[in-house]
C-alpha cells in the first residue's frame, strides 16, 4: 500500500508513530542517505581513527529562512563543520536535530533539507544520525535546526590561543560581513535588490590545505557572530597582547560597505559564515597567504595585522592613518536613527 502524502507538518509527525515514519521516509532519508545513516541505528557509529576526538554543537535560528547565498540548512551544516575545522579537527559526521512548527509547509522543509544535503556533500561530512520533533503552532518559528559534529584532530596538531605571541601575523580568508548583511537586508528590506550574498561555506577543505602548507599555524577561529571585532578583541583579552589591525587591508566588498552604511552597522562587527581568521608566525605569513588564496573560498585572503606587546586590546589603524580601539560589540545589532 502506498503511503499517503502530506503537504504540511502536523503535530503527529513528531509523535514517533507511523506519521513520523512517513515524514522520515518521504522527506528526510532520501535527501540525507549515506551508508552510516542508512543503517538506522540509534547512534551513527564512526570508524576508529588515530587522533583526538573533537565534539561541537550549534543551534540555528535565522529569519528569513532563505536569503541570498544560503538558507537555514546550509548554515546548519557549515557552522558545525567550520567549528570543527578551526579546532584543527577533520569532521567525520554530523547529528541533525530538527524542531518543526506545526503547519510548516512540506516544500520549505524539503528545500532546507536539500541544502543540508548539498552542503554536507560539498564538505564531505555525512549526517549520520538525527532527531525530529514537532511543536504546536506559535511555539517555534517555522523550523529550528541543531547540528552536532564529531571530528578527529590528527596527532601532533595543536591550535591554541596560548601559543599566540607578539610578532605573530593575522590573516583573514576573504571579504567580511557578507553573511550578516545579506540576512539583515533580506529581513529588513526584502524589496531591495542587492548583489550581496551570504558567504556561508564549509571551510574544512580550505583549512586542511592551509594546515598542510603551514603545519605551524598558531590559531584559527571563524568570525561568526560579533564578527572580526569580536574575535580579535576576545583574543587580545585572552592572550594579554595588543592586536593591531590595518583597516586598509581588511577586505570588504563595496556592496557590503554600502549596506552597512545604510543600516548604520560596522562591517567589522557583523557575522561571517565562510571566513577564517588565521594567526601564524611571521615567517609563515606569506606561505599561509598563498595557501589560502589557492582555494576557491580563500581567493580574497589578506594579511590584515599583527600581534604586538602591549595592553590587552585590539586597535585598528584607520584608512586615514588614525588609530582607535576595536571592541567586541555589545549584543543585538541595532540600526541607528539617521
Amino acid at each position, binding site marked *: 500500500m502506498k503511503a499517503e502524502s502530506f503537504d504540511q507538518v502536523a503535530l503527529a509527525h513528531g509523535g514517533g508513530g507511523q506519521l513520523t515514519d512517513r515524514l522520515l521516509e518521504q522527506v528526510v532519508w532520501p535527501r540525507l542517505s549515506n551508508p552510516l545513516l542508512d543503517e538506522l541505528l540509534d547512534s551513527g557509529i564512526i570508524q576508529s581513527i588515530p587522533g583526538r576526538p573533537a565534539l561541537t554543537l550549534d543551534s540555528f535560528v535565522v529569519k528569513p529562512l532563505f536569503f541570498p547565498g544560503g538558507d537555514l540548512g546550509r548554515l546548519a551544516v557549515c557552522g558545525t563543520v567550520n567549528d570543527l575545522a578551526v579546532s584543527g579537527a577533520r569532521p567525520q559526521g554530523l547529528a541533525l536535530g530538527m524542531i518543526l512548527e506545526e503547519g510548516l509547509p512540506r516544500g520549505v522543509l524539503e528545500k532546507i533539507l536539500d541544502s543540508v544535503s548539498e552542503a554536507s556533500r560539498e564538505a564531505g561530512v555525512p549526517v549520520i544520525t538525527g532527531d525530529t520533533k514537532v511543536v504546536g503552532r506559535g511555539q517555534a518559528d517555522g523550523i529550528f535546526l541543531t547540528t552536532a559534529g564529531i571530528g578527529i584532530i590528527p596527532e601532533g596538531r595543536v591550535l591554541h590561543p596560548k601559543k599566540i605571541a607578539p610578532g605573530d601575523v593575522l590573516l583573514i580568508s576573504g571579504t567580511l560581513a557578507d553573511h550578516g548583511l545579506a540576512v539583515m537586508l533580506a529581513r529588513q528590506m526584502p524589496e531591495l535588490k542587492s548583489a550581496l550574498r551570504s558567504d556561508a561555506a564549509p571551510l574544512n577543505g580550505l583549512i586542511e590545505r592551509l594546515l598542510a602548507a603551514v603545519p605551524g599555524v598558531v590559531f584559527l577561529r571563524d568570525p561568526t557572530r560579533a564578527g572580526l571585532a569580536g574575535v580579535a578583541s576576545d583574543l587580545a583579552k585572552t592572550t594579554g597582547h595588543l592586536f593591531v589591525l590595518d583597516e586598509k587591508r581588511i577586505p570588504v566588498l563595496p556592496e557590503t560597505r554600502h549596506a552597512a552604511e545604510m543600516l548604520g552597522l560596522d562591517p567589522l562587527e557583523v557575522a561571517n559564515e565562510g571566513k577564517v581568521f588565521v594567526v601564524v608566525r611571521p615567517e609563515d605569513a606569506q606561505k599561509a597567504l598563498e595557501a589560502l588564496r589557492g582555494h576557491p573560498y580563500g581567493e580574497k585572503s589578506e594579511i590584515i595585522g599583527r600581534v604586538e606587546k602591549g595592553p590587552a586590546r585590539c586597535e585598528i589603524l*584607520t584608512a586615514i*592613518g588614525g588609530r*582607535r580601539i576595536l571592541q567586541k560589540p555589545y549584543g543585538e545589532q541595532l*540600526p541607528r536613527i539617521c
Partner: protein
Amino acid sequence: MNGRYGSLEAILGRLNMAVEGAGRPLTFMEVCGTHTMAIFRSGLHSLLPAGLRLISGPGCPVCVTSQGDIDALVALADIPHAIVCTYGDMIRVPGSNGSLERARANGADLRVIYSSMDAVKIASENPSRPVVFAAIGFETTAPATAAAIDAAKARSLANFHAYISHKTILPAMHALLSGDASRLDGFLLPGHVSVIIGSEAYRPVVERYRIPCVISGFEDIHMIAALMRLAELASARKVDLENVYPQAVKPLGNPAALALLEKVFRVGDASWRGLGPLPGSALVLNQAYEAFDARRKYALPDTEVPEPAGCRCGEVILGKTTPAECGLFGTVCTPTNPVGPCMVSSEGTCQAWFKYQGTRIPEPSKASA
C-alpha cells in the same frame, strides 16, 4: 584619497598650519552625533594637532530625548495588544521604569523598523491592534515621519498613531550660543540635516553670533577638509558660512521634503535633555493631522521626569563635560548597562569614547607612523 582640497596629507598639512597660525587653542563643536561617531571611527582624534579640540554637541537624537519621552514610550508599549515601532537606537535607553527592551522581554510587541513606512504597513496589516510609531530625530528623519503620517491619513488608518519627538537643530544652536559661547571657535555642521534644511538656514546663526560654520559630509576627507576650513577661518578671525559638501547640500535644501514638513508639522516646544525646555524647537502635528498624535489619543501627560542621579549626559551633550569627567562613565555606566542615553546611542558621545578609546583615557594616544 583626493578631493577638492587635494590629498589627505595636503589637507592635514593645511589644518596643522592653520591651528599653529591661530596662536591660541581652538575648540570646534561637531553638532551632530553622526559626525561624532564618524570622527571616532576614523581615528581622526589621533591625527589632530595638539592645539585643536573637538567637542560633541547636542545633535544625537536619542541623547537629547527627555526622560519623560522615554517613559511615555515604555507606557505605550504596555497598552494591551499594542505594537510599538521604533528605530533601533531607542530600545535600550533606560527610562524611570525600565527600557523598551525590557518591556519587550516582558511581552510587549516591539518592532525595530528601518523606515517609517514599515510602521504604516504594520498598522494596515494589523487593523485590530493599536500601532504606535516612535518618531524621533532631527530634520533628517522628520520628512519620513511626515510621509508616513500623510500615508496613514490617505489610507484612513484609525489604528496608527505617532509619538512625535522631532526636534530641530537651529534652536539648540541658538541656546548653546546664547549661553556660554565663548568656548567655541566654530561649528562643524551635519551634512544630512543640511541636505533637508539647506545651507542658508544657518546664516542667521553665523551672523548673529559671529561664529564660523562649515557644513560637511561624513566621509573622512570631507570632515578633515571642513575642520581645515574652520581652522583657517578661526585663524584669520574671519566669520563665514561654508559648505564643503555642495554635491549634496544646496543653499535652500530639499524643497519637496520641506514642503512635506510644512504640510504635516507646525513648530512647537520641546524639552531637551541637557538644554531643558526650548520654545520653538519641536515639530508637532498640525491640526489636519492631530488625529494621528499618540499623545492625544492615549492622553499621555507632559511631565518633567528627573534624569538619573549622577548622570551627566546633559552636560556632555552641551560639550561642558567630557565623558571621562563623569563619575559613572566606564564603571557604573557602560554600553552593556547604560545609565544615560549618551552611552546607549551608537551616536552618543559616551559610547563613542568607551567604544573607540576605552575607559579612563582622557585623550587618544597619538598615532604612530
